[in-house]
């Protein structure tokens, strides 16, 4: 295995183009199978230390949150750590009855609380108490965090999950002798999830929102900026959720979301490490094959119309200034995707990048500046953003002007041969550096499977960058980075009121 990767990349480097045969040599170690229930499974044999990593990708993120229930995809991710009908409970039969009672009590409380015209405050209190009493009753059956405990006690490493606008992912690594135990745990989690401790976990998520957004200057800016940038497409909604939605949605809502989107045809399970596909695939089939086949969920997406206006959000904040601007660009499947990658690299990578040299080194107006794609996601048309961190005494407008001057250069002058070569060399080297560890490989391969239905795209992305021309860069910059396609987000420092004793 090791040897063949090496040979592959020596070839890769000297020829500069990946031929089908190079992929074929990588292919010897990868097995892909679509199970009868529609689940996509990828196994890569990477024998070294007796360990493996996995990545379960659910092709649904906060873009799929139902109306008035923002934050639900992320909430579901938290609930996937709460156990099953076997794990995390002292008596599931009894617990199930009480959990149903909690949902009924919550629905009654919600109905009264949200009754805007004839709300009876006394009744709200009474119903809230009934709901809270039911929660307390359910708690007696809970073995807290038993799912996580089993994973940890069995040597699980780096157990975590994430939710983005585009997808939800679960991952950790384990000693190789726990492979079957992992297959059991990971399949059970999506076969028999139980919405226990839901309303306490909802408070945990609200604390997460306070940490990431409300109490963080950058978090506050990004939320306002993205909301402003998208009028029609669901990308305008925060993944963490609006506070009113977080205070409203129910375990029943989460369960409904689960049944709609956590279906085998909408999921990819990737395993990389010291496993043999011939032995591992039957184990995966035995456990994950139990997930019932369901139809792929329908999409409910509005397409973002052309912006046709300059938009701006300005936060007068207690913190130091930041300048950010974004331009709409097509989704990751667009034929110019690699051109955007090349532009991001050229503008942002290291001390040779154009933005570093212009804003940091020469003009000395910023401590950092960069441009990147993928805000807030890539699956649908999204933003290519530029930002700069002004040095003390410098204004956001100076940053904006300097970034615009660099954009103008992209449109009007060809990049140099050296620059273009550097971008292409770096793309290849970055690919190689990303192949070192099991967890990183699992996440990359799994994501390519979900996005393209083919892991080989990991290599083809580099091939596409190899084909980018100087004219491509001018053309794409000219069509994308125009004023009427721009949204600006700025933090301006407000003068603290000394009477409040606020810190600067």
């Amino acid at each position: 295995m090791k040897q063949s990767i090496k040979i592959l990349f020596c070839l890769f480097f000297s020829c500069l183009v990946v031929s089908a045969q190079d992929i074929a040599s990588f292919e010897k170690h990868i097995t892909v199978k679509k199970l009868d229930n529609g689940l996509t499974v990828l196994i890569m044999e990477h024998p070294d230390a007796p360990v493996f990593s996995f990545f379960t990708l659910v092709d649904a993120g906060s873009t799929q949150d139902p109306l008035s229930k923002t934050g639900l995809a992320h909430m579901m991710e938290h609930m996937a750590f709460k156990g099953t009908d076997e794990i995390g409970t002292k008596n599931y039969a009894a617990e199930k009855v009480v959990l149903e009672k909690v949902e009924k009590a919550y629905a009654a409380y919600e109905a009264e609380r949200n009754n805007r015209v004839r709300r009876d405050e006394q009744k709200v209190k009474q119903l809230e108490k009934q709901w809270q009493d039911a929660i307390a009753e359910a708690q007696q059956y809970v073995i807290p965090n038993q799912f996580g405990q089993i994973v940890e006690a069995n040597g699980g490493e780096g157990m975590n999950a994430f939710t983005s606008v585009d997808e939800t992912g679960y991952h950790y690594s384990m000693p190789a002798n726990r492979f079957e135990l992992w297959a059991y745990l990971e399949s059970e989690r999506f076969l028999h999830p139980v919405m226990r401790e839901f309303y306490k976990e909802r408070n945990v998520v609200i604390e997460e929102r306070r940490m990431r957004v409300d109490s963080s200057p950058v978090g506050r800016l990004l939320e306002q900026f993205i909301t402003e940038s998208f009028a029609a497409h669901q990308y305008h909604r925060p993944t963490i959720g609006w506070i009113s939605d977080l205070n409203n949605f129910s375990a029943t809502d989460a369960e409904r979301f689960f049944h709609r989107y956590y279906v085998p045809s909408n999921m990819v399970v990737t395993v990389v490490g010291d496993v043999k596909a011939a032995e591992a695939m039957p184990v995966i089939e035995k456990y994950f094959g139990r997930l019932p086949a369901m139809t792929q969920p329908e999409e409910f997406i509005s397409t973002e119309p052309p912006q046709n206006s300059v938009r701006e959000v300005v936060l007068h904040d207690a913190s130091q200034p930041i300048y950010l601007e974004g331009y709409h660009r097509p989704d990751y499947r667009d034929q110019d995707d690699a051109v955007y990658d090349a532009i991001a690299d050229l503008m942002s990578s290291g001390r040779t990048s154009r933005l570093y040299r212009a804003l940091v080194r020469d003009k000395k107006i910023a401590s950092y500046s960069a441009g990147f794609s993928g805000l807030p996601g890539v699956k649908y048309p999204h933003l290519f953003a530029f930002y700069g961190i002004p040095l003390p005494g410098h204004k956001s407008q100076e940053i904006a002007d300097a970034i615009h001057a660099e954009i103008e250069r992209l449109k009007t002058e060809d990049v140099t041969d050296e620059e273009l070569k550097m971008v292409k060399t770096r793309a290849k080297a970055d690919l190689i550096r990303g192949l070192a560890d099991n967890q990183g490989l699992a996440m990359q391969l799994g994501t390519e499977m979900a996005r393209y239905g083919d892991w080989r795209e990991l290599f083809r992305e580099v091939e596409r960058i190899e084909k980018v021309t100087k004219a491509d860069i001018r053309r794409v910059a000219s069509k994308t980075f125009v004023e009427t396609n721009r949204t600006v987000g700025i933090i301006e420092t407000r003068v603290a009121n000394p009477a409040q004793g606020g810190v600067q």
Partner: protein
Amino acid sequence: MKRNGLVVTALVIVSFLTLFSPPADAQQAEWQKVAVPPLPAFHPTEPKRIVLSNGMVVFLQEDHELPLINAFARIRGGSYSDPAGKTGLVDIYGEVWRTGGTKEQTGDQLDDFLEARAAKVETGGGGDSTSIGLSCLKQDFNDVFKIFLDVLQNPEFRPDKLDLAQKEAFDAISRRNDDINEIVGRESAKLGYGKDSAYARVPEYATVAAITRQDLIEWHRAHVHANNIILGVSGDFDSAQMESVLRQAFEKWPKGPAVARQQYAMSPAKPGYYLINKDDVNQSAVRFIDSGTTRKSPDYYSIEVFNEAFGGGFSSRLFSSIRSKLGLAYSVGGGIGTGWDHPGLTRVGAGTKSQSTVESIQALYQQIDDLKSQPISNEEIGRAKDSILNSFIFRFDTPEKVLREKLGYEFYGYPLDFLERYQSGIEKISVADVAKVPPRYLHKEQIRVLVVGNSAEFDKPLSTLGPVTTLDITIPAPPQEPAPAKP
């Protein structure tokens, strides 16, 4: 097993089974029925250790998986010994060392050369050491190593890059009070070690402005000598060949004055409540701070197990109570601090909404009290040990990780088989051992409680718990100079 390097054996599995096997008459849960075969023995590649005649220590770790070569050198002496009035010197040095170029080439020229090859040579400053690293494709090693050597031995510290580094440092100073989690980390260290302690002080406009090119040159002259350097090289090379390249490069480098290992004074703040008010947040960052110990302490293994059970992962008491049961925090955790060469800081904390600040402090107190009334149980200890021992292999599952571990032991003067000792040290820990940890290291009456938050919104004034010292973290303005402007 100890002698043969790091081996994971069936022992580990036995401890798992003893823990989770239910009583004979109980019905086994489904997950307990899944077979767990023994983990095959695994002997990671050990790096080759070479000591040159001038005292430079080199580790070579072959790893032929990818056509890459990485090198990392650690040099004794760091920001803990920044001269008075020049705090920030080593941070600035760590940057300008590389950006300021060499006698032959400017930093910008190095950037162009390296980036064209997707290669890196970078330098940096830390508390007890500075470092220089290299990363490149195998085919470029000769060219990139030449630059590595040139930066290591002939840096020029050009003034324009010093100016740039100072400007960036001013920017960081101006922004250091923007985020509560940054504030709470920095100020916790000041309370635990003392605000002027080498382990806690931070650069100010005046101390950064005072740094000169001559300071950087002198720092380099005083520290960068073969006998103060530990170098690790890993990647796709032949060890014998690499050894001869390195001998040729370094063997003739004369010895210099050795950098002595130093301990620095600590003067922790007195126990009590400390408040930093910030009116633009709705969450409080709460920390309990106390003095910890070092990894050389005989209690080290007990502390490791205690920390896992008390404030480690999903299984810990803090996570299960403060987060899952009470829903008071998203981020919660902590444990007894253990440093390599000086006492670590014990930190226990949570981020909670302003309206539950005092409630959370009381809940954390309750967790400390519970350690007396409900000591960490046999079952909790079994789980903590299983978690540490069964995931132990992830500390050495790649050649790069093995190399990093060894470099650390070498640097701090720990036995090179520390990792194997660690495994057997953890295996031996009993309930009685762990029970000794809280009375030795966690004293309610000695804790400094720091809260960074919006005090107008607290559930109760912090003063209901005891006398409160309000900390002023206003950033001192630069002396006289008009720029950089006061933020």
